[in-house]
Structure formats: structure tokens, C-alpha cells
């Protein structure tokens, strides 16, 4: 039994041995598949000399860890918010903000739905704003040309980045939504719900629509006066997201890297690898890559160590990517 006493000693001896560097990543589940793909390739290219771990605690949960300095890289499906900037500032954490891909939200209905051919932002707002609760109950309440059938709404749960962005883009205020709809954090549940109900309408990330085209159909969205396409109804697709005509339901997603971590060679290398390989890896996991120029611009920003966010603490709807790249940053 004496060997037990020597265990702590073994522990100490081993702790002193050289460590394999670990890159800690956490945050959004939307960005997870992209970061997973990049990490997979990066670890293969480094043949095990660097370890990468990726967790999922949501954009909000991830930023909490990021601003406590617990992680190196944060996956974010929306820009950093004012309060989070404040937290990071207090902890003395400075960061780089790198847009890495587009994510779009598709408005979907049942394939047997014959009446809805397109949908306007105004109609979506009428359906989803908090005032609609209990009032907009039939399809005909939204548009008189539609049948007097009960409308069944399916949408993202309130912890999801998709929810934050959809409400911001449609209702005009983040997290402001009616509450009497079927909410789920699991998008597959929403797909199943819409596919089983003729009177259903839901919003889901584009990747889930693309994988389930036989079960559900997407409605083309009319962006209205602020949209580049004005009154044209636009389907979500790689082209329309890339050229910004699918308005307002597409947005860039980001990674945030802490400045202290950037000083470590393996993390600098990882971030460079991330930006350089996004153009090929992003479409593989069914997201829309940014234009090549945007990645070039990011590489320059990384080299110049341009810190801070271009958003000043809030999301913006329908932002053009080239505009975004040129903006001034603030911490």
C-alpha cells in the first residue's frame, strides 16, 4: 500500500515535463462545424504537435469565458455586444475580430403549402413581433389572400444566435419576439415540425434547409426598400448570400482571438491557417464563404494586429462585407 504515498510525487514530476500546446476554442454552435473542420485539418497538418479543443457553450456563454481569459479563440455567430466589450475591457482582454463565413436563415413552409409563394419582411414582422401574440392566429391575418387556416409557427429558442439575429433583422430589436410558437434549440426538431404540418411556417439556418429540401420548401424573401433587390423575391442560396441580395436574413459569423493568445506562435499559426483555408473548408460544411478579398483583408489586419470590433457593440442588419472590412475598429 506504500506506493499510494508516492502518487502525488509522480504527479508533480510529470507536471514538470514539457507540455503539448493546447488551443482552447469555445462558443457558438453555429460556427462549430467550421471551426471543427479547420481544427481537424490543422491538427493533421501539424501531425499531433498542437492540440485543439472545441466546445459549444453558445455565443453568449463563450464570450463570458473569453472575457475571463479561459479560452484562446471564441466562435461567435454575432458581433460582440457592448456588455461583453465592457467585461473584456475590465479583464484587460484585447481581441482581434475576424469574419470567416456567411450564415443565412431560411424561412420555410410545408411543401403542400400552395398559397404562400413569397414573403415580405413586413409580413414576417407582422407574424413574429411581440404584438402578434394571440392576435395573428390565421394565415389570413397576415395576408388577406391567404386562407383562414391556423398558422403554426416554429422558430429558434431564445438562447440561440439565430433567434437573436432573426428578431433583430425582422422585428428590429434583438430578442424581441412573440412567445406563443414552438421553440427549439434543435433545428432538426423544427424541420420535422414544419414537414409534418401543412399550416406551418418556421425559420431555420440555411444548412438545415439544404439538407432537407425534400421535406420542406423555402419561401423567397422580399427585402423591401432597404434591400438591394427592393421588391424582388429572393431565394436563399450560395450566390444570393454571397452577393448580398438575400436580405436581410444573412449575416457574417466571426471568430474572436485574444491578443495575449495571438502572441503564442501556435495560435498565430492556427488563425492564419483558419483564414487561408476558409475558402475551401467553409463550403464543405455547407456554409457560404466570404469573397476572397475579404480573407486577404483579414490576413492583412492580423499582420497589422488591428484590434477591436467594427460594430461598436451591436449587430447590424444587411451589412456589406467589403464595407465591413474597411471600417475603423474600437476596443
Amino acid at each position, binding site marked *: 500500500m506504500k506506493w499510494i504515498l508516492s502518487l502525488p510525487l509522480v504527479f508533480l514530476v510529470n507536471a514538470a*515535463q514539457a507540455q503539448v500546446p493546447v488551443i482552447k476554442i469555445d462558443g457558438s454552435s453555429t460556427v462549430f462545424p467550421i*471551426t471543427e473542420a479547420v481544427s481537424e485539418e490543422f491538427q493533421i497538418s501539424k501531425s499531433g504537435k498542437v492540440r485543439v479543443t472545441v466546445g459549444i457553450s453558445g455565443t453568449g456563454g463563450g464570450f463570458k469565458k473569453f472575457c475571463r481569459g479561459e479560452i484562446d479563440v471564441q466562435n461567435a455567430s454575432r458581433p460582440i455586444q457592448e456588455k461583453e466589450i465592457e467585461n473584456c475591457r475590465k479583464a484587460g482582454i484585447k481581441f482581434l475580430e475576424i469574419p470567416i463565413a456567411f450564415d443565412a436563415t431560411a424561412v420555410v413552409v410545408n411543401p403542400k403549402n400552395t398559397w404562400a409563394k413569397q414573403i415580405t419582411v413586413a409580413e414576417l414582422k407582422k407574424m413574429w413581433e411581440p404584438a402578434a401574440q394571440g392576435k395573428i392566429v390565421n394565415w389570413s391575418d397576415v395576408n388577406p389572400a391567404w386562407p383562414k387556416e391556423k398558422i403554426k409557427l416554429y422558430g429558434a429558442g431564445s438562447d440561440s444566435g439565430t433567434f437573436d439575429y432573426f428578431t433583430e433583422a425582422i422585428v428590429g430589436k434583438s430578442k424581441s419576439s412573440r412567445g406563443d410558437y414552438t421553440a427549439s434549440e434543435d433545428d432538426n426538431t423544427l424541420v420535422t415540425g414544419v414537414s409534418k404540418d401543412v399550416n406551418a411556417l418556421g425559420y431555420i439556418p440555411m444548412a438545415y434547409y439544404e439538407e432537407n429540401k425534400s421535406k420542406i420548401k423555402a419561401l423567397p424573401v422580399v427585402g423591401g426598400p432597404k434591400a438591394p433587390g427592393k421588391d424582388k423575391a429572393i431565394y436563399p442560396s450560395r450566390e444570393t448570400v454571397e452577393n448580398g441580395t438575400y436580405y436581410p436574413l444573412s449575416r457574417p459569423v466571426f471568430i474572436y482571438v485574444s491578443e495575449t493568445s495571438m502572441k503564442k506562435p501556435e495560435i498565430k499559426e492556427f488563425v492564419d491557417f483558419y483564414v487561408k483555408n476558409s475558402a475551401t473548408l467553409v463550403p464543405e460544411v455547407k456554409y457560404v464563404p466570404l469573397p476572397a478579398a475579404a480573407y486577404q483583408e483579414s490576413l492583412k489586419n492580423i499582420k497589422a494586429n488591428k484590434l477591436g470590433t467594427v460594430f461598436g457593440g451591436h449587430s447590424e442588419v444587411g451589412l456589406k462585407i467589403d464595407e465591413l472590412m474597411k471600417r475603423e475598429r474600437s476596443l
Partner: protein
Amino acid sequence: MESQQDILANIKRRQFWDFVFALTGLMSLLFALITLITLIVDLSLTGVPRITLDFFTSFPSRFAGKAGILSAWVGSFCVMITTAFCAIPLGVAAGVYLEEYSKKNWVSQIIELNIINLAGIPSITYGLMALGLFVYQLKLGQSILTAGLTLGLLVLPIIIVTTREAIRAIPNAIREASYAMGASKWQTIRHHILPYSSGGIMTGVIISLSRAIGETAPLITIGALTFIAFLPTAPISDVPPFINLKWLMDPFTVMPIQMFNWLSRPQAEFHVNAAATGVILLMMTLIMNGGAIYLRSRFRKKMKW
């Protein structure tokens, strides 16, 4: 006075209700069984074709066909070992103390009540406690050690309760005989109580571990990771002192978390992976429970009193 006919009618009525009750019971049983079997068959039909050797030896990947559960099952295995290492000595010792040493008064009654209550606490509460205590206070990080300690606490009440039951089943005559031979209390426990109750204790241990292996909520709370494409540090090293405990502090993922992640993906191929992981998890639980039943019957046969 009742006539014979009345009595006969009465018996008939009672027999009828007896039959109805038996039928209701059978139906309830069948309902539960059929639901379970449907679930298992459905899961197996989707998952079993995906289970190949490669599935056990590959890391997770963005390609569903290339992805495997290597880091997940190794993680589950390491966490289980740590859990067993923490919970068994503590649980058994606590059970022995409560049964053999503690005085039966209101203090012991309160302790007893609390242990039973602990067994009923939702597992996520343990996760929250572990996040505050192990991750932040003791700074153990999101490591295998943290997970093992958390699940250890979670199953501790089960082990205590089963240990006590196993000890209680030993007739007092055994203890008295041991004392009569001049054995001390500890000698009695060491040479008689523990060996005789070990079957029951083992059963409890295995059942508690098979509960722990499927736990997800507390591990997500302490921040178990989702994507890991490397294994913990090897426990054996080529330099003295040859044993290496660094793996305890390594990050990890476990099978239920890997399964959950695959299930939430848009691609149907990932759902197949999730089903395959589910089948493997189910098999492990079944094997563990089967082992528990085997042990119990073996020890029962050996005991002759």
C-alpha cells in the same frame, strides 16, 4: 346467512376482478416493453450497419463517413475509472460506518434521510456544484478529474445505499460468532462482513457506474468539450517513474456528448453516427447490468446460511 350460491357468486366476482387486475398489469408491462423494444430496434436498424472497427479507432471529423468515437469512448472510459476510484472507497466506507459503527440516534437519522434525498437530486445540480467547486474554486479545470469527481459524487448515494442493504442482509449470528472467537470489530468487518456483502456491493457499484456512463447534463455544465481529436496522455511512460497521472488533467469528451452533437447536425449521415453511438452505449449499459446480475446470483449461491 348466506346461501352457497351467494358464496359462489361472490367467488366468481372476485375471480373476475382478479383477472382484470392481472390483465391490467400485463398490459402495462407489455406497453413498457414494446416501447423499449421499438426504440432499440429502430436505433439498431439505423446504427448497427455503421459500427465497424474504424468507427472505434477514428476521431470525430467533418465527414460523417470518416468520423468515429475514439476520443469519446476513451474519454468515457477514463471518466468511469476516475469515478469508480473516487466513489467506491468513499461509498463503501460510509455504508460500513453507518451500518456497523454509528449509533442509532437522530443525527444518524438525519444523515440517512439526506443520503436518500441526495440520490434523488437532478444530476444537473451536481454539475452546477462541480462547476463552482472543482472548476473554479479548486481550479481543476475542465478535466477528466473534474468529471470523475462530479460523477463520483452523483453515484455516491447509490453506492452507500446498496452497501448498507448488502450489509444488512448478513445475519447477526455471523457477527456474534466472530466476536465469540475473540475477533475485534474491525476484524469482523474485514474478514466477514465485507466478503459476505461484496456481491451486493459490486452489484450496486456496477449499476451506479452504468448510470454514470450515460450522464450528459452535469458534464455539459462543467464544460466538457465537443470536438477533441487527440487522446489523453498515456498512463504509462518510458521514463521513470513509468506511471503517469497527467491524463487526469487532460480535456475530454464522452460518448453521450458526441452523440448529442451529431444528432443536432443537419446532415442525415451524422444522425446515423449518433444512432451507432447510441447502440454502443446501450450495449455497454446492458453488459454492465448483465454483469451485475451475474455477480449477484454467483454470490448468492456461495452463501449458505
